[in-house]
């Protein structure tokens, strides 16, 4: 998009805001809305964009249909660089993000890019981490598992769906750290291409434990193949998940939420930022979104605007510290 076009749009929007609506500062109205999914169609970020766009249109929070653009590559790094370098002034653009985005930013895995180059808009829910074992395992609680690791780290292989240093790995390390395991590098983590593959290997007996998100594990919990020994949530979850004990109530102060949300270009105007943060909040509050959350096993996490910005900054700092401990970054 040419700069003068952006200027033209902003100008038109300003006129629209002052003449037609004439309301307070939040009266920004985007002309065309766009959501970048930094992954191929079918992935988690793609669904965040599409489901958000659909609900936002249904409840009339945005004008028209939201255009979803897939810009995959580099674990979200290609899209991040594109937004920072070429779309920095856009007011009509949001980008799907999750804890994975924050993790990669913390580990400097987007070469040359940092978290403060964009504005964090808001979250649409969180998928809490779980640690599970096979149904026939002797291990019943999280402290038991961590004790076994403490005594002989080589005896327990934990599998998960992310690469080493990714969020599934870090969740175990957070728990191990809280349980007093000093050298978290001794925890044996095996990376798989996805949570389902890791669970299959848990059932096949290659692994002793599994770390992942609740939504991935749900089908296997229902069938009784695996047992969840801890949910990494601040308190017990609602509904059918309420039977799972949290790590905190077992004396291990570990919380790991994989949030789903959005960031916006760093040069987005305050009015537009306000508009998008409100839109995300409105979508979050809608009944349609409650349905989406239930379907996908998402737990509540309602943060938008500056609150969300703070939350992301804090989690990036925490991940950075942990990554330094395990030697992923210097």
């Amino acid at each position, binding site marked *: 998009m040419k700069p003068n076009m952006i200027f033209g749009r902003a100008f038109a929007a300003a006129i629209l805001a002052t003449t037609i609506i004439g309301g307070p500062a939040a009266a920004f109205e985007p002309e065309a809305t766009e959501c970048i999914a930094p992954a191929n169609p079918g992935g988690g970020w793609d669904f965040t964009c599409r*489901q958000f766009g659909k609900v936002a249109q249904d409840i009339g929070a945005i004008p028209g249909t939201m255009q979803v653009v897939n810009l995959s590559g580099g674990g979200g790094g290609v899209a991040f660089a594109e937004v920072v370098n070429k779309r920095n002034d856009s007011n009509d653009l949001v980008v799907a993000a999750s804890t994975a985005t924050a993790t990669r930013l913390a580990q400097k895995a*987007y070469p040359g890019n940092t978290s403060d180059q964009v504005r964090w808009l808001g979250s649409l829910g969180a998928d809490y981490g779980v640690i599970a074992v096979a149904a026939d395992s002797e291990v019943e609680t999280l402290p038991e598992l961590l004790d076994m690791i403490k005594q002989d780290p080589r005896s327990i292989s934990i599998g998960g769906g992310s*690469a*080493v240093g990714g969020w599934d790995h870090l969740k175990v390390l957070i728990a191990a750290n809280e349980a007093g395991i000093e050298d978290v590098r001794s925890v044996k983590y095996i990376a798989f291409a996805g949570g389902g593959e890791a669970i299959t290997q848990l059932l096949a007996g290659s692994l002793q434990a599994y770390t992942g998100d609740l939504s991935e594990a749900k089908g296997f919990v229902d069938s009784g193949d695996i047992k969840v020994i801890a949910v990494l949530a601040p308190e017990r979850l609602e509904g059918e998940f309420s039977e799972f004990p949290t790590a905190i109530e077992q004396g291990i102060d570990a919380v790991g939420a994989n949030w789903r949300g959005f960031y916006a270009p760093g040069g987005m105007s305050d009015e537009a930022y306000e508009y998008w943060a409100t839109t995300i909040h409105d979508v979050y509050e809608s009944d349609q979104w409650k349905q989406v959350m239930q379907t996908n096993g998402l737990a509540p996490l309602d943060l938008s605007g500056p609150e969300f910005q703070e939350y992301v900054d804090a989690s990036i700092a925490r991940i950075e510290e942990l990554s330094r401990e395990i030697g992923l970054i210097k």
Partner: protein
Amino acid sequence: MELLSSLGDGFLVALTFQNIGLALLGCLLGTIMGALPGLGPSNGVAILIPLAFTLGLDATPALILLTSVYYGAMYGGRISSILLNIPGDEPAMMTCLDGYPMARKGQAGEALALSGIASFVGAFFATWGLVFLAPQLVKVALLFGPAEYFALFVLAFATLGGISSTNQAKAAFAAALGLGLAMIGVDTQTGVPRFTFGEVHLYDGIDFLVAIVGLFALSEVFIFLEHRGTDKDSSTGPKVQIGRIIPPWSMVRSCIPTMARTSVLGFIAGVLPGAGASLGSFISYSMEKRLVDRENTFGTGDPRGVAAPETGNNAAAGGALVPMLALGVPGSGTTAVLLAVLLALNITPGPLLFTNNPDVVWGLIAALFIGNVMLLVLNIPMIGLFTRVLMVPPRILMPIVAMISFVGIYGISGSTFDLVVMILFGIGGWVLRKLDVPLVPIILGTLLGNEMEVNLRRAVTIADGDYSVLFGSPLTIGLWSIAIIGFIMPMVAGKMLKRRMQLAKKTGEDTDLVD
């Protein structure tokens, strides 16, 4: 027969006007997407997800549409392989090896019809396998730990020599090149980027489709440009004959044992998560060559060389649905996308899917049967139309191929970086063709190399650095034995066989299999 009555219920679900219409639409779109280089089953399905959502389809109709696209793309991939020597997608790569020589010999129509029949047979038996064996087959998937997977991929590489009969050293070089390319990207076992030179576009590794389109399609265009105006110019050569559209019964009959064997082989390859259709078609081809190619006709236009990979990859496509439906674990890239659709449609995949959503599962399986028959019926009469492609003069065809390649690749990732990579692969492919290095092992190295590496490292990490784990179970020992036999046998037995063949020819007992 409880299963059959469930299947009957499935047909009741699938046989509505809307669902049949969707299956027809899916089959047509899938065939076209499969045939176009750069659009394979996984992005074909992914592109249509928004359509399924916009139409507001329920779970079953949406799945029927998307799986028809999936099966359709498996059929369609062979068309460009046979006619242009450009695989439409990864699994169709092996079909180039004998399909294109057949087309050059003037048997394009027969090759297309035969591969259509082979695809039908593979998909048909795989769908029955899905009906009867899904719960049991899940247990097979659970027998495969990282060590077993590693042995399986070694087996695949050990039989690689079967692909190019001319020069084994060049095939080995090509495979090594492919393995090297597979190393590019972030290493999942350590989180460290390898060979990326700080370029964020390379963090996810090289996309197979970009490599395939570059190596096959663009290099074909370059070769054409090079020969233009010289006596090698193919456009001034004699017109290629299309041949008959219905293959002679003797040709089909000679392929029946091949189809039977590769249906089973492909199906098993599909059931194993992570292996998928490419491994299915590859193993089917190389095993079949080992088994029946006594006269060294594979690679020169042997109909069995067309039937084997096509049966194999369609059987694997059906097999890949087993872990997806019964475990919620994708067996291939396409099933990963389908799984995401299930989640979005409020259906929890996993071991309870058959119990909780029988209408979805059985409706889907019934739709697979319907789609498969539809594809066969659609494909056979359209062969005449497809073969018209060969009548198009290369000076018009080649620019179209180039254009489709660029649009297709840009359409997937929306990044110009991939276009540059594709052009580099095109130039590389052109050079390698000049040096007579086979291109197929490069792609196989890239496709299988990654899985082979991570499974080796998973196995050894779990065993705390003890390499003996790789031979630690009966299944691994079995796989290793087959790999070793498959590697050594041709060297020893090949010479003996050839000698016996020559003797047989002299005494005039040589039976003509094909013509």
